[in-house]
């Protein structure tokens, strides 16, 4: 079974700066990590490989430093990594990003399943997974919380939606975006770390994936970030510091009054 895992390197969300000119993120000076939600896709790939055999290729589009993210998932158990990095890719929105990843997947050739994280914790869109499936014109499923069965031509998965779980059968090859509930990601092993340092990670640019230049980067992106602002954080609410039971009771009365004012009681 050939499994592909597109991953993204993201900044730690608690420490982010934006370029007010372009509206894109300033990545320098921020410790980048593998998108935490991608680790569930990586883990699931490793488990599928353990059960059905095969190989796992991780792919990432990003700056040259995103190689580190690929090394990290290789040290968890992915077999290979491919880095898509070129200045023409820079500033891509989800439309253009999913195009580049889909072109790279076409270049890789035959596969059984693509596993994606539900979304990245920086952009927080969840659009690239379904976007890749649309470019490749393959069936897909989102919010997958369990892969129940893998057969020759189909995969059965459970998806978690607002009011329950939907069990669906999907034709292969397919793309699945997985949620956190699916597993518990392992840590990299020492052997894995050593291997990840030795393994060659090919670097692909637009020509390697036969990409149309007009679909790339900021220029190839339909959306434009026109303004970035800091949301107002503080609500200037009421603050209570009860020191004894009587005061606590008074605070509780205020809370109940607040519930009444907001018409929830």
């Amino acid at each position: 079974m050939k499994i592909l895992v597109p991953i993204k390197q993201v900044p730690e969300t608690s420490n982010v700066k934006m370029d007010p000119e372009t509206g894109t993120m300033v990545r320098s000076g921020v410790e980048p990590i593998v998108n935490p939600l991608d680790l569930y896709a990586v883990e699931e790939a490793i488990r599928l490989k353990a059960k059905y055999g095969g190989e796992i290729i991780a792919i990432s589009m990003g700056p040259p430093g995103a190689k580190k993210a690929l090394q990290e998932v290789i040290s968890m158990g992915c077999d290979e990594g491919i880095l898509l990095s070129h200045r023409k890719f820079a500033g891509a929105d989800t439309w253009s990003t999913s195009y580049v990843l889909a072109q790279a997947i076409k270049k890789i050739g035959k596969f059984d399943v693509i596993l994606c994280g539900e979304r990245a914790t920086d952009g927080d869109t969840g659009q690239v997974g379904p976007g890749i499936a649309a470019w490749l014109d393959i069936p897909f499923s989102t919010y997958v919380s369990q892969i129940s069965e893998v057969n020759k031509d189909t995969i059965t998965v459970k998806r978690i939606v607002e009011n329950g779980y939907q069990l669906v059968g999907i034709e292969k090859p397919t793309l699945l975006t997985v949620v956190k509930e699916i597993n518990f990601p392992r840590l990299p092993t020492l052997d894995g770390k050593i291997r990840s340092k030795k393994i060659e990670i090919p670097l692909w640019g637009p020509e390697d994936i036969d990409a149309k230049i007009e679909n790339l980067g900021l220029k190839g992106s339909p959306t434009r970030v026109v303004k970035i602002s800091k949301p107002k954080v503080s609500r200037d609410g009421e603050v209570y510091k009860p020191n004894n039971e009587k005061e606590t009771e008074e605070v509780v009365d205020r809370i109940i009054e607040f519930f009444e004012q907001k018409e929830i009681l």
Partner: protein
Amino acid sequence: MEYKGVWILGEQNKGIIQTVSYELLKRGKFLSEKLGVDLVAVVLGYQISPKELNKLIHYGANRVIYVNDQIFQNFLPDPYINSIMELINKYNPEIMLASATSTGRTVAPAVAVKCHAGLTADCTGLDIEEGSNNLIQTRPAIGGNILATIKSPNHRPQMATVRPHSNQPLEPNPGNVGEVIYEKVKEKNLKSRTNQIAFIEMKDESANIQDAEIIVAGGKGCKTEESFKMVRELAHQLNGAVGASREPVDLGWVKYPHQVGLSGKTVSPNMYVCAGISGAVQHLAGIKTAHNIVAINNDPNAQIFQVADISVQADLFDVLPILIDKLKDRKVG
């Protein structure tokens, strides 16, 4: 080509139009009136009653485009995406809105790729730019640390998913008149490469935190699975859903569907009551659009107090039992 009209994707479950769609109609009405164009609700479903479809008109749609087919009984990506594509290609709307629900967030990105549209996820603000008539979309990003304003100046339709419950529907007006078009799509666009084998309804309604008006959430400060039950009890007393920060989920006190925040769900309840949650950025990202927040935490420096309307700096083990008792007393009295 001329693109005209504002569309919303209406969602239905077992033939009942979902509240999120009425919320979208209010957003759409604001935009369509500014542009001076029609507001159209597109619904894919099976045997939806004319009465139900007419509600969309009462809630603000000038027109409803309805495709009736058995395949739409359950949500499957292929027929949804391909049917919507066929309708977009036929009518050329300038704006297409969907709810940022599991369905909307699955369908919209694939449609956007296929019709070369810009798509903005999980918007909390929408407006029309004067002069250019471009759609101006505002959304929180990077864990809610920033608000980004986004537009798609050169591509049509302009697409956005809208955060559920980030606004209230209009008051329905039964006097509104409009047209319901029963549309047929090509047979090939109704085919699906996925099939539903079963649907397991969520038995525990308290887990449906995205639709909840009231959420009571607990965090690490609850200390044990046993004492987390106070959170459940308070939720029960308020007829609310049960939420949690990451730790209680990781520790197994409560299941993942209850998790609020960056790696869980984004919620917009009328009332969010939280106890023992410090308010890490990741958690705050999930409650930015909660309308009212009551926070109980014994750490006076907890970040959660920055966003709370009522901050109670006290031990939750002192406050919650009294709150629960008083609420019980009210019911009896």
